[in-house]
């Protein structure tokens, strides 16, 4: 569109016609005060702070809602503008408590900042001030609504971004009160952003309450590692501790929002369960020792158990999905240098012969541009909140969304269809889709589709994909342990190929893309995790693993690791009894925020970060531990000074991928009850499980085995009993012949069944 010229404070400025005045002044660096305006939210024009003088308009106009037009002349600094702005400022302050010294927002308060310039020293308001009673809106957000200036940013955030209007304005006039409509308060997975958008001290961080002033803290930008997005965040630190996390801006990644998981997980860093000293087990007794002793002990153990006997293939290494690129890379390098290719991170997969590869070939921003999405086996809102946010934006712009899931979830956007079927029926539904797609483009059906009957649902899903110019198929976590999971994945790949759809693979989370890139997978001569557990290996190096949460075959894993003939080196950030039981050496390592490293997100962005704080006690970043361990083992090529040298080396490595099952086998039609085992969203890694406030939220408390009445009857459980250690909920929201489990930290068992 051709640009037009307007005059602001005597200066000619070019801008797009119809653009709001405030975005022009912001771009030009002209200061216009505002409270209700937020660049990512709809315009409210209600605070009236941004009133400016537009020539020809009898009244001052709000810059946030005045579209510009050719030849417009605007005065932002003249008497008319200033007197309106000062009038509004005075009105805002009359009922504001002005209790800045005891307000948590003090020092980072927009009202305070603007009042310095626009406020008066003396108030002529002598009536009583308004007091607003507070509701407890949950463990994450502290309210002090007497300070509220009714900008409604939090209300608009809920309605527009979180997709659920949990805060609203009740009452009118100066009885208008911003509050949640429901007694359960604010429960959204994105709720913490309300703290960031609140310009005053009405909504502040509850865990951070009365801790510090903003100016006392250092801020370091870093990357959140709980999901596939790698949200950009700022860790605010004081005397070596992370005290608060706020969102960072990156339009290609998280825009300006972050999930509550990314915002509040830092609390786990200071948990009393942190492992602070290296320990070795001598004759069954744990002894805290220095690093030299511990590493010597580790080297000796490896030497006597495998190296001296030329049994280097008896070493198994495993790592948590949340490890950094550098950690994955060094650990697999150690294993390969020693001579073992028994390397794996896919601890939660039931059958690793039944996995297939599906690449993600659409970027986060691209998701907003699709016109149709098919989601298979995912509850994206809780599992990948920031990706769900993009899908929601797309949906609001008219994108249709079909879902094939095994349970009805609370989507925060409209679905075109919601097909609730057990995992072992997903393959046949997708086969129907593929059959229908191939028929429509006159491609001969392969043998495996010959006997497939296309259901009405499959035909309609196929039609949507066929008619779409820009569709995406999203694969989630729920099918990874289905009996025919490889078939499901391969069918999706075929459907995508023939409908020109992009694919988005959310079936494994955190930093698992880094594991694939760095070759943290079994080599051609190596064993995968499940094979290792059955092979009585002589030595293990385990990075940040907590078997009762991480392994699908948890009992088998604990048994295998407990074998008294093996030597287990564990690197952990937190104490854990089971780890103590089977390990011979436990090395304390840095957690999130305490190490430098790199995360790879779904865009393929390699986002590196520095440590925000030093790890507590004697704990060290794992990459340094591996480097020293390698040196002590006299392995070549570990001559790193800092972690960026490792990152560079990784970037130059060829991909080193494990094998994938490319079969499509539709013959599996068992009538078994399908179990989908999911760690609750706030229990997926050790740091989250130690984050007190998150655990108290509604999402943190998710610990239920959902099933319908007939499945409960078959399994012999009832609503007041437990299944696999998880409390049972009887509901028709779950597909028949299916149990959907969300297990939180209260349930210490893997997904074995």
């Amino acid at each position, binding site marked *: 569109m051709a640009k037009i010229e307007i005059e602001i404070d005597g200066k000619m400025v070019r801008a797009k016609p119809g653009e709001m005045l405030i975005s022009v002044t912001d771009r030009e660096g002209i200061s216009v005060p505002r409270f209700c305006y937020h660049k990512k939210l709809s315009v409210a024009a209600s605070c009236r702070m941004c009133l400016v003088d537009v020539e020809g308009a*009898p009244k001052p106009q709000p810059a946030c809602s005045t579209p510009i037009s050719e030849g417009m002349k605007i005065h932002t600094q003249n008497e008319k503008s200033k007197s309106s702005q000062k009038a509004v400022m005075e009105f*805002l302050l009359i009922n504001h408590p002005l209790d800045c010294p005891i307000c948590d927002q003090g020092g980072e308060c927009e009202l305070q900042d603007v009042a310095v310039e626009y406020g008066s020293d003396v108030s*002529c308001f002598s009536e009583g001030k308004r007091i607003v009673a507070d509701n407890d809106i949950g463990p994450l957000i502290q309210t002090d609504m007497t300070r509220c200036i009714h900008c409604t940013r939090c209300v608009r955030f809920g309605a527009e971004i979180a997709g659920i209007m949990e805060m609203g304005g009740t009452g009118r006039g100066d009885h208008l009160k911003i509050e949640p409509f429901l007694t359960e308060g604010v429960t959204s997975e994105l709720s913490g952003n309300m703290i960031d958008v609140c310009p005053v001290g009405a909504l502040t961080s509850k865990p951070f309450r009365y801790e510090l002033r903003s100016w006392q803290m250092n801020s370091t930008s870093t990357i959140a590692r709980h999901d596939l997005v790698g949200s950009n965040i700022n860790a605010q630190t004081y005397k070596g501790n992370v005290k608060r996390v706020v969102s960072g801006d990156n339009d290609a990644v998280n825009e300006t929002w972050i999930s509550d998981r990314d915002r509040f997980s830092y609390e786990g860093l200071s948990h009393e369960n942190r492992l602070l000293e290296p320990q070795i087990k001598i004759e069954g007794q744990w002894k805290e020792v220095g690093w030299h002793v511990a590493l010597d002990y580790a080297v000796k153990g490896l030497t006597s158990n495998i190296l001296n006997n030329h049994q280097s293939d008896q070493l198994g290494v495993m790592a948590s999905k949340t490890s950094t690129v550098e950690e994955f890379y060094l650990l697999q390098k150690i294993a390969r240098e020693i001579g073992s290719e028994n390397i794996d991170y896919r601890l939660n997969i039931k059958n690793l012969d039944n996995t297939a590869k599906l690449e993600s070939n659409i970027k986060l921003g691209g998701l907003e541009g699709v016109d149709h999405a098919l989601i298979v086996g995912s509850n994206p809102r809780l599992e990948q909140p920031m990706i769900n946010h993009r899908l929601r934006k797309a949906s609001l712009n008219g994108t249709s969304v079909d879902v094939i899931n095994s349970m009805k979830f609370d989507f925060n956007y409209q679905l075109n269809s919601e097909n609730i079927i057990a995992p072992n029926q997903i393959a046949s539904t997708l086969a129907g889709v593929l059959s229908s797609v191939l028929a429509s483009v006159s491609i001969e059906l392969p043998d495996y589709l010959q006997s497939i009957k296309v259901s009405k649902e499959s035909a309609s899903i196929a039609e949507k994909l066929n008619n779409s110019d820009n569709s995406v198929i999203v694969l989630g976590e729920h099918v990874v342990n289905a009996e025919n999971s490889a078939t499901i994945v391969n069918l999706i790949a075929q459907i995508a190929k023939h409908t020109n759809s992009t694919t988005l693979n959310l079936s494994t989370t955190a930093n698992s893309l880094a594991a694939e890139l760095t070759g943290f997978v079994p080599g051609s001569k190596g064993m995968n995790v499940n094979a290792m557990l059955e092979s009585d290996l002589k030595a293990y190096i385990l990075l940040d693993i907590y078997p009762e949460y991480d392994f699908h075959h948890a009992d088998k894993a604990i048994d295998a690791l407990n074998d008294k003939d093996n030597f287990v080196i564990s690197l952990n950030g937190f104490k854990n009894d089971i780890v103590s039981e089977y390990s011979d050496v436990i090395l304390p390592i840095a957690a999130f925020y305490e190490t430098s490293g790199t995360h790879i997100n779904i865009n393929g962005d390699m986002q590196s970060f520095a440590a925000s704080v030093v790890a507590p006690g004697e704990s060290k970043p794992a990459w340094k531990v591996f480097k020293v361990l390698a040196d002590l083992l006299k392995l070549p090529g570990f001559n790193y000074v800092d972690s960026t040298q490792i990152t560079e080396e990784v970037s130059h490595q060829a991909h080193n991928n494990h094998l994938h099952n490319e079969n499509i086998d539709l013959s599996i039609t068992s009538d078994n009850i399908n179990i989908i085992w999911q760690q609750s969203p706030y229990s997926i890694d050790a740091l989250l499980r130690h984050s007190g406030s998150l655990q108290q939220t509604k999402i943190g408390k998710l610990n239920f085995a959902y099933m319908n009445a007939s499945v409960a009857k078959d399994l012999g459980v009832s609503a007041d009993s437990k299944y696999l250690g998880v409390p049972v909920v009887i509901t028709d929201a779950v597909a028949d012949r299916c149990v959907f489990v969300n297990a939180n930290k209260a349930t210490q068992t893997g997904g074995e069944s």
Partner: protein
Amino acid sequence: MNEVCFKNLDKKDSWSLAVYEASGGYSVWRKILRGELTPEQIIDELKASGLRGRGGAGFPTGLKWSFMPRNSAGQKYVVCNSDEGEPGTCKDRDILRYNPHAVIEGMAIGGFVMNATTGYNYIRGEFIEPFNRFEGALKEAYAAGLLGENISDSGVDFNLYAHLGAGAYVCGEETALLESIEGKKGQPRFKPPFPANVGLYGKPTTINNTESFASVADILSKGGKWFADLGVENSGGCKLFSVSGHVKNPANFEVSMGTPFKDLLEMAGGMRDGAKLKAVIPGGSSTPVLTADVAMAMTMDYDGIEKAGSMLGAGSVIVMDESTCMVETLTRLAHFYYDESCGQCTPCREGTGWLYRALKRITDGNGKDGDIELLLNVQDKIMGNTICALGDAAAMPVESFLRNFREEFEYYIEHGKSMVKG
């Protein structure tokens, strides 16, 4: 007197379809359905009539209707504002009670002109009887085949619904009214965009007052010139005035524009108990108050009242005799706006509360030096800075009361009691 909206007032069951039709009702609508009138002709006639919006703003109705993008694709709406909430006004209530079919016909004509196939009449929450009357009239009109789809095989569609409000004054502001119809909290929208472009459910919408709609059919049947000639220059037609306060017979009067105020006062039986006139609010509580002398010399039309220093508004004439304490009256008005502010924008939310509290303090006997300046200062800071006109409406009376009756305020502040009541 009583020539347009109230022309059937003296007839039995004046609200019935039969009475309405007997007086020529629906003849214009039937002409339209027969294809004998074009939108352009209607707009020209309305422009010639000089009809100006009767809700208070006085915007020429013909011009307003011509703004609608009638040929654009998509749904358009026509909305009637019967949320008559201005203190002092009760004219629309009586139109709905005694002549509801005139509103229906006017809305249907508006729908035709603007190519809007759906209409809503938003009726004030407290108006249960008028609401039921209007609903009854709608039933009659549907039964007579005057509304619906493809009416009388004309190809013209018009469906009309009544919507009962929930008791908020601010919903009389047209965009708050639209929000309320949509089921949301009644809060005015910022403009632009204006409802003619983005209105009800985001579609082009025209909103007119009940009296405006009720005048349309007669204008079209008798001609724009006939209507214009009823009034004076720049104020065509006749107008309903709701005369209340210290008069013998408070009532609604439909009189020609330009009628002298003193004649109107006479129609209302003159001052009650022979008391002396002290002040008049000529157009509803938001318009500036006038002193007796000024009022008695004023004519009741847009220009006449403006010349006197106030506004015609909705034609709500509040008459006050000498027993009236202007400080307490203003306090009561300030309380009204404080109570009715929607609260979304800062100057109105905070300013109306400030004005009321300061005035309340004065009438409680706790006034202090500087209070008059404070009140003037606060009203000035509200004025022109708000999203909708409610802020201005709250500010204006403060200025005019203080300008015209300042000594009463000074007395109250100094003595802690009313100059009038003692």
